[in-house]
């Protein structure tokens, strides 16, 4: 008859009997930490401490970066040119390739049975938009147009012709909309905005330079004439050589035809409403002036 062997043995009993482990009880393995030699402590007393021999280098009186002894420095001899002029006023659009969009749909991060919005893309971590860096939204890029095969109702800020063709070929709908920077910040992070307790603002209309882009049916702009958009769809189908599928006969027609109002930021929520997260309620304004302001297009 053998005694049941205690696993751990002495180590286990030591662990059970010794006091609690704290920083005061711990010490690294001898030889694990080798102290590095500090400056001025090397052989022969460090000698010049890594500073070299005499001169400005050792004495620490070297001139500023770019100085060339009095000669006009290189970075001043070159003439000015407006490469970066107005860079902080130029809108930027984060690119999203169709390849990545297909990847997100395949993995189930983006739901193609619901309208795909900028909020949905950011929730799925498909794109990262930074409104503070002059980002005005997302642009769709043609990489992966040949492998794209998903029927979606997507709303982006900019799209090229090839992308529009690829999406409409698969029976989808694409719209280009404009979000001003404040609305963009709200669309990207809706929950922190709701926690602020402010009423949902009206989405502003595009500035003078962007209005022609969003009024154009070729770009599927949200301000364009719906009939012209239909004509543009047919023309594009002829140009790229595919048969335009008829979406009105589609089972998801209602979803595909969902579009936001010009002044609306979220689907199902109007400007002026306050969403209260802790109480889980939506508060709507009742005052006439407020209702008139929030429902006007001017």
């Amino acid at each position, binding site marked *: 008859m053998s005694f049941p062997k205690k696993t751990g043995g002495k180590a286990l009993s030591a662990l059970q009997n010794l006091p609690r482990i704290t920083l005061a009880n711990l010490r690294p393995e001898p030889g694990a930490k080798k102290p590095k030699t500090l400056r001025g402590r090397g052989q022969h007393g460090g000698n010049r401490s890594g500073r070299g021999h005499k001169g400005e280098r050792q004495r620490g009186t070297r001139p500023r970066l770019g100085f060339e002894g009095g000669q006009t420095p290189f970075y001043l001899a070159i003439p000015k040119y407006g490469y*970066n002029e107005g860079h902080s006023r*130029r809108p930027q659009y*984060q690119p999203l390739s169709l390849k990545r969009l297909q990847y997100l749909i395949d993995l189930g991060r983006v739901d193609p049975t619901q309208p795909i919005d900028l909020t949905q893309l950011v929730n799925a971590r498909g794109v990262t938009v930074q409104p503070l860096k002059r980002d005005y939204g997302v642009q769709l890029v043609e990489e992966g147009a040949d492998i794209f095969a998903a029927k979606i109702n997507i709303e982006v800020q900019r799209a090229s012709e090839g992308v529009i063709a690829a999406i409409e070929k698969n029976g989808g709908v694409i719209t280009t909309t404009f979000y001003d920077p404040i609305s963009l910040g709200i669309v990207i992070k809706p929950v922190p905005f709701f926690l602020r307790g402010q009423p949902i603002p009206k989405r502003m209309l595009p500035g*003078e330079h962007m209005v022609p882009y969003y009024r154009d049916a070729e770009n599927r702009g*949200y301000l364009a*004439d719906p009939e012209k958009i239909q004509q543009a769809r047919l023309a594009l189908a002829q140009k790229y050589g595919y048969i335009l599928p008829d979406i009105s006969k589609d089972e998801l027609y209602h979803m595909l035809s969902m579009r936001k109002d010009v002044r609306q930021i979220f689907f199902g929520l109007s400007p002026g409403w306050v969403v209260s997260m802790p109480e889980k309620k939506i508060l709507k304004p009742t005052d006439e002036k407020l209702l008139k302001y929030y429902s006007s297009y001017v």
Partner: protein
Amino acid sequence: MAAALARRVSGLLRPLSVSLCSKAPQLCKLSSLTRLPPVYSSAAAAVRAPLRAAACLTPRYNILQRVLPLIPGLTPQPSRSLTYFSVKKGKRKTVKSVTDRFMRLHCDLWIRRKAGYKKKLWKKSPARKKRLREHVFCSKTQGKLLDKMTTAFWKRRNWFVNDPYLKYHDRVNLKL
């Protein structure tokens, strides 16, 4: 800066007329926005800002502006040093002269103009003028210097609309 100098120097010259072109006709023209259901027609409001008062037309002010750069001791010396740790926030600062003259491509190359591309062109041969008109890359050491003089903001990827330099931000067919 010019305004501060003008204030300092105006004590030396006769006091300028107080009401310099006080008339500032407020010209605001709001074009009415039409209601937009189904066709959302353009909402471009033509709001012209009030006309700037033409304060720079008095003869004394013109002379002031011409004489200021010639008076020694009144034009401030530019400070060309690089700030490693700023006083207020403790951050590194960019040297603005660099961003005025150079452009950083995302592939770590810097481009610039040739010095003298607009000067004394009458005496330069067409071939020389063409060479001066070209945009040129900076060398590796020059690029390293410019990188040290700018902060990380100038090294970020930018996706401008209709950017003429968009295709140059990535190297293609580079064999090391």
